[in-house]
């Protein structure tokens, strides 16, 4: 059947019997190439669900090592992994879950010199980064390369998710947020804390959106910003539109090259996250 092994037919049987997936859809998943930016809070559930779903190639961009304080939420890594490169423990976890998945390791700090080369081989990019410079870099690179970007972000008890796809009439990150906030205006460089389960919710939503894009099924979050508030236990949706004046994907773009926003919050990028009390970093 479509070149599956018997074991694959059994492993993916709950997908294969789904009308909107089927054998053909599962084949698409196995052939898909998805790049995860970050193997942390958001990247963990996304990577694990995409691996379990049989997404054939998972690229991971991650240069960090596992810290004990990561384990409260970053499910790709185990206590015994503390001190190891995250990209290695991520690969171990993914392949223990599903040996069908080919993990491609990009152990680099993304910047304007390498991002286009890294993303070019992938169908879909998933944003799980923890800082503004990388968010703008990845957005601009995806606009230039015409790749869909499945975006997620988290802060304390709140999360956001959407799909940016400027190549298909969708907005990009800069349509919403044309320029980075000035240093100190938005808590970002320092951690104000995050509920450990929160990235599980947002990262899982990103995984669903990736799978829908691969299958070509359903209504994606393109043009919609999904907001989640864990304390109120509320999901809300905001309509977001392509901005004709967007500096990167608009009609007369002013940003035509990648930008490395190196200085943020007065510290060199990448900054080591510091644990601060929330009131110290609130705007």
């Amino acid at each position, binding site marked *: 059947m479509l070149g599956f092994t018997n074991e694959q037919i059994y492993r993916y049987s709950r997908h294969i019997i789904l009308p909107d997936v089927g054998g053909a859809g599962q084949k698409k998943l196995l052939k898909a190439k998805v790049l995860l930016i*970050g193997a*942390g*809070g*958001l*990247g963990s559930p996304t990577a694990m669900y995409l691996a379990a779903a049989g997404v054939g190639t998972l690229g991971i961009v991650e240069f960090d090592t596992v810290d004990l304080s*990561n384990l409260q939420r*970053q499910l790709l890594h185990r206590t015994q992994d503390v001190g190891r490169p995250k990209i290695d423990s991520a690969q171990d976890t993914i392949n223990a879950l599903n040996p069908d998945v080919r993990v491609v390791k990009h152990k680099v700090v993304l910047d304007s010199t390498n991002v286009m080369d890294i993303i070019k081989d992938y169908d879909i990019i998933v*944003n*799980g*980064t*923890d*800082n*503004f410079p990388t*968010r703008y870099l990845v957005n601009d690179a995806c606009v230039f390369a015409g790749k869909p970007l499945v975006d*997620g*972000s*988290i*802060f*304390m*008890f*709140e*999360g*956001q998710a959407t799909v940016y796809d400027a190549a298909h009439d969708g907005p990009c990150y800069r349509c*919403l*947020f*044309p*320029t*980075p*906030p000035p240093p100190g*205006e*938005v*808590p*970002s460089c320092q*951690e104000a804390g*995050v509920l450990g389960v929160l*990235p599980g919710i947002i990262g899982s939503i990103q995984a669903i959106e990736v799978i829908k894009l691969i299958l070509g099924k359903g209504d994606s979050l393109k043009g919609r*910003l999904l*907001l989640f*508030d864990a*304390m*109120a236990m509320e999901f*809300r*949706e*905001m*309509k*977001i*539109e392509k*901005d004709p004046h967007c500096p990167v994907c608009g009609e007369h773009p002013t940003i035509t090259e990648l930008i490395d926003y190196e200085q943020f919050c007065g510290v060199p990028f990448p900054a080591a*996250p510091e644990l601060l009390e929330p*009131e110290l970093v*609130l*705007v």
Partner: protein
Amino acid sequence: MVTILVPTPMRKVTGGQGKIQINAQTLQEAFDHADAAYPGFRERVLDEQGEIKRFINVFVNGVDVRTLQGRATPVHDNDQVAVIPAMAGGA
């Protein structure tokens, strides 16, 4: 009364409240009245020229006010005003 949804980073000025109820006819009034009740609210949303800060998006009933009438956008009872700042966290 309109309901303003307050994002986590701004809840310090609202005494931790994620939603506040404000009497207003326009979005600008909603910000002004919110600032009267919760001093410091306005300066977190508007810049020195009085415009909505560019790293913040404001939505009335789920629609970006930049596609409506900006700060002049009329608001009515039971409308929801969402203030959504850029958020970078992911790890």
